[in-house]
Structures are given as structure tokens and as C-alpha cells.
């Protein structure tokens, strides 16, 4: 087995295991930290794919900024642990929607497993082409930058508007309302 294949399987195992643990945790802080591990493994996979730009922004933007935002909110809200099934049964017996009771939620998990099986089957079945990657590196950071500011310049500018809207929206939503009417405080 070549070293590339070894690295691929190592990173893939880390990504899948930590993602599984993310959804297997009841404590959101552990979930966020495990997701950072998963993103690190994905960054390694991007390096294997000759995509250094994606690998670096995966670490800087995702693991560095977005996950820290999640961690910040988890700690701000004092990380309430998720209620167990027994708590929910005692607390809201008969009031919960039928689709939200524990049994049907297991059905949702079963459907997700079905989705894995179908996707993997569909991807491995149609193996007509070898699917091998062409030789030679693609997508150096310089080429990406040139393309981003020429072909994709409009989308790039729209992105800045999107960020601005998201920022204003987050501030407006999370602001604490001191009084019911905005006219009360000038």
C-alpha cells in the first residue's frame, strides 16, 4: 500500500470516527472539539488532493473562526446537557408530537444508514471509468486568486454583501431588548 493510500485511510478514519462521536455526544462542548478534529483530518485530505488553499482556509476559517464561535456560544449558554429519553418521557408524556418520540427518531437514524448504503452502492456500482486523478498539480494559490478576482469577481463582491447582511442580522437578533418598544430609548 502506497503512502498516499495509507494517509488517505488514516485521515478518512479520523474524520468518520470523530464525526460519529460528534453526533454521539450529549455534551455540546465535546461535540465542538471533536468536530475540530474532524476538520483537521479533512484538511489533510485536501492536502492529499493537491488543494493547499482549501486545506489552509479549512483550518483558519472553519476550525479557527466558525468553531470558536460555536464554542463561544456553548460556553455563553452554560452548555446545558441534552435531556435523555427518560427525562423527556416523564416530562412531556403524551404532549410530544408523534414524530418526535424516541421510536420514530430511531427511524430517522435508520433512514440515514439507508442513505449511506444507497450512496455507497451507487458510487461503487458505476465504476466504468477508473476514476484516477490526472498527474500534475492543479490549483496553485496564485491561479485561484487570479480566477477569483477575474472570472468570479462578481460573486466575490456579492459574498461581501452576504457577510455584511449576516453580521447585521446576528447583531439585531442577539441584541437584548431592554424595553418592548424601540421608541422608548432614544
Amino acid at each position, binding site marked *: 500500500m502506497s503512502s498516499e493510500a495509507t494517509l488517505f485511510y488514516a485521515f478518512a478514519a479520523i474524520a468518520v470516527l470523530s*464525526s460519529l462521536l460528534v453526533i454521539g455526544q450529549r455534551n455540546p462542548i465535546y461535540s465542538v472539539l471533536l468536530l475540530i478534529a474532524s476538520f483537521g483530518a479533512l484538511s489533510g*485530505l485536501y492536502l492529499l488532493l493537491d*488543494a493547499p488553499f*482549501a486545506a489552509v482556509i479549512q483550518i483558519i476559517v472553519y476550525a479557527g473562526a*466558525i468553531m470558536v464561535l*460555536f464554542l463561544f456560544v456553548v460556553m455563553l449558554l452554560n452548555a446545558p446537557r*441534552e435531556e435523555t429519553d427518560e427525562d423527556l418521557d416523564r416530562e412531556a408524556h403524551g404532549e410530544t408530537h408523534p414524530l418526535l418520540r424516541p421510536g420514530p*427518531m430511531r427511524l430517522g437514524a435508520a433512514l440515514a444508514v439507508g442513505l449511506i448504503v444507497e450512496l455507497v452502492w451507487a458510487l461503487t456500482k458505476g465504476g466504468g471509468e*477508473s476514476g484516477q486523478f490526472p498527474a500534475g498539480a492543479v490549483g496553485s494559490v496564485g491561479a485561484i486568486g487570479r480566477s477569483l478576482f477575474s472570472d468570479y469577481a462578481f460573486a466575490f463582491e456579492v459574498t461581501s454583501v452576504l457577510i455584511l447582511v449576516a453580521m447585521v442580522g446576528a447583531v439585531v437578533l442577539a441584541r437584548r431588548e431592554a424595553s418592548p418598544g424601540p421608541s422608548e430609548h432614544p
Partner: protein
Amino acid sequence: MVTLNHYLVLSAILFSIGTAGVFVRRNLITILLSIEIMLNAVNLSFVAFGRALGAADGQIIVFFVMTVAAAEAAVGLAIVICLFRLRESLNPESFVSLRW
């Protein structure tokens, strides 16, 4: 030899894990994290397709997806903070006022 199919299968597995997380978790923050897992699975297939086609456009799409994910996380977490102030709970079953 690692081929495109390897990456696509890995991407499918990660996406399904994210889907399962949305179904089985009852914590708004963990549900948002599961959505991030799904976005990353799609990013992985974009980069793999870009490598297979020999073009840099895959990574540019990843850049835009990450921007949208950042905006989604910011607004989503602001909504979570609002909801937590309202009900002192992160359980989605606490927020049923709009339910028919």
C-alpha cells in the same frame, strides 16, 4: 491507488453522518454542528471533482461554501441565543408555538 471514488464514498459517509445527527440529536447546537458536517462532506467532493477535472474551480466553490457556512453559523447561533433567552432550553421540542 486512491481514486475519485474513494473520496466520493467518504463524502457520502460523512454526509449521511450529518443527516443522522440532525435526526437523532435534541440539542439545537448539535443540530447546527451536524449541518456543518454535511457542508464539509460536500466541500470534500467539490475539491475531489476539481482535482479530477484538473481545474481550480473546485476550490473556489469551496471558498464560497465556507463563506455561506460562516454566515449561516453566525445567524443560526444568534437565533439559538434568542431562543435560549426565551425558554431557558436548547431542546427543539420546547419551541412548538408555531406547530399546527
